[in-house]
């Protein structure tokens, strides 16, 4: 009985989350339409273009990892993943490690031989059984190349159970801000599931596990989506049609950018007086 109650509670929570998400999405679309003048009955005033000071969709706080650890710098989106090629620890051997288009996931750990925080990770990687890696996940350690790192130091630190690649190019490819830094890559798609850093492996692994849960939740949600009420579906269809008739096709940059096109002056048709409406910003 208790189990049944718990399951029902979980279902309710999931549904609530879904509803909130849909409502938010709907609100955003309505706002955009209003700014573009779509959906306005003839004769009704249309909205002004959104002000250049409109709040971005995402904020830095969304990506705050740990209070005491500096956030990654602003990015437009997560960086991409790439296969790794470089020299082995010690600087003499050559190796390449596939990250993309493989069956397994990979945690790419960007470390250095000199940083104090990195030492905890070097030590942790020396005991692979205690890492509690997600099933089907491989760790690859990456340091900068021999021109920027002490190859002998890396050789003495390199874990026996995971490949270690010395490659400065990898730091560039992954847009790594500094070490230690971790990127969790979904092998089959090459998509970055999560990235960040932490003071020790316990913290990092819990963050990565959370990323896994989130991804798993999204997957679970997509598989268990509740059929939309007819009224919602009809409304979305109408919005799509009106956007298209206004020249805004799916993927149109105007749907994502809040600044007016460069060099373009606002035309009378574009200026809308809200009179009594809040300026959108």
């Amino acid at each position: 009985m208790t189990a049944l109650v718990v399951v029902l509670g979980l279902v309710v929570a999931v549904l609530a989350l879904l509803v909130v998400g849909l409502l938010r999405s709907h609100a955003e679309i309505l706002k955009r339409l209003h700014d573009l003048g779509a959906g306005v009955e003839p004769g009704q005033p249309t909205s002004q273009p959104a002000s250049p000071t409109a709040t971005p969709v995402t904020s830095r706080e969304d990506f705050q990892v740990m209070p005491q650890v500096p956030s990654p710098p602003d990015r437009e989106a997560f960086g991409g993943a790439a296969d790794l090629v470089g020299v082995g620890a010690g600087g003499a051997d050559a190796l390449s490690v596939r990250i993309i288009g493989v069956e397994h996931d990979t945690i790419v750990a960007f470390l250095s031989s000199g940083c104090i925080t990195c030492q905890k990770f070097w030590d942790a990687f020396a005991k692979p059984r205690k890492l509690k890696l997600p099933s089907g996940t491989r760790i690859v350690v990456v340091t900068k190349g021999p021109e920027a790192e002490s190859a002998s130091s890396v050789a003495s630190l390199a874990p026996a159970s995971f490949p270690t690649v010395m490659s400065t190019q990898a730091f560039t490819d992954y847009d790594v801000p500094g070490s230690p830094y971790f990127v969790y890559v979904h092998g089959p798609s090459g998509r970055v599931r999560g990235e960040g850093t932490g003071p020790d492996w316990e913290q990092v692994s819990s963050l990565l596990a959370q990323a896994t849960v989130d991804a798993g939740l999204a997957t679970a949600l997509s598989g268990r989506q509740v059929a939309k009420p007819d009224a919602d579906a009809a409304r979305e269809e109408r919005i799509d049609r009106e956007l298209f008739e206004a020249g805004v096709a799916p993927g149109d940059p105007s749907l994502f950018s809040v600044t007016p096109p460069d060099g373009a002056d606002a035309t009378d048709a574009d200026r809308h007086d809200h009179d009594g409406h809040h300026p959108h910003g």
Partner: protein
Amino acid sequence: MKLQAHGIETELPAGWEGRIALRTQPTAATRSIGDPAERTNPIVHLANFALPEQRGDFGSGAVDLMSEPHVLVVLFEYGPECANTALFSRQGMPKKLTPTMFSGAALQRTLPGQAGCQIFFTEGNRAFCLYTVLGGQSAATRVLPQANATLAGTRILAR
């Protein structure tokens, strides 16, 4: 993706990863890893699957993980005293492997469904063994073109 080390270079096709490595030379202070008189020589491991870090020179540890579409190519070098001897009399690295060259018995460790091919040769006065393992012998015609592409992209520089 190009790898180059220890006088060997290889241009890996998409979907492959590799290692060109030299094990640590034992010394009098490190008898746990061998006698100081031993001579380590370059070893190349190329695979279309994720290579585990702990591997034997002829692929043990990696072959355990192979399934039907997987191929492991091992290039194992011997000392100069072996070059051009009877066992290593073949000149030049093979570039084209065919299914008939493979056998379920020609394996360092015979695992069900797998097949191996071992060829000793000399190139550039360097003695080698080319040891190729198929995760599934039945997939030979499908996967050997990949292995041959890997071999085609591999060059041994003379001593």
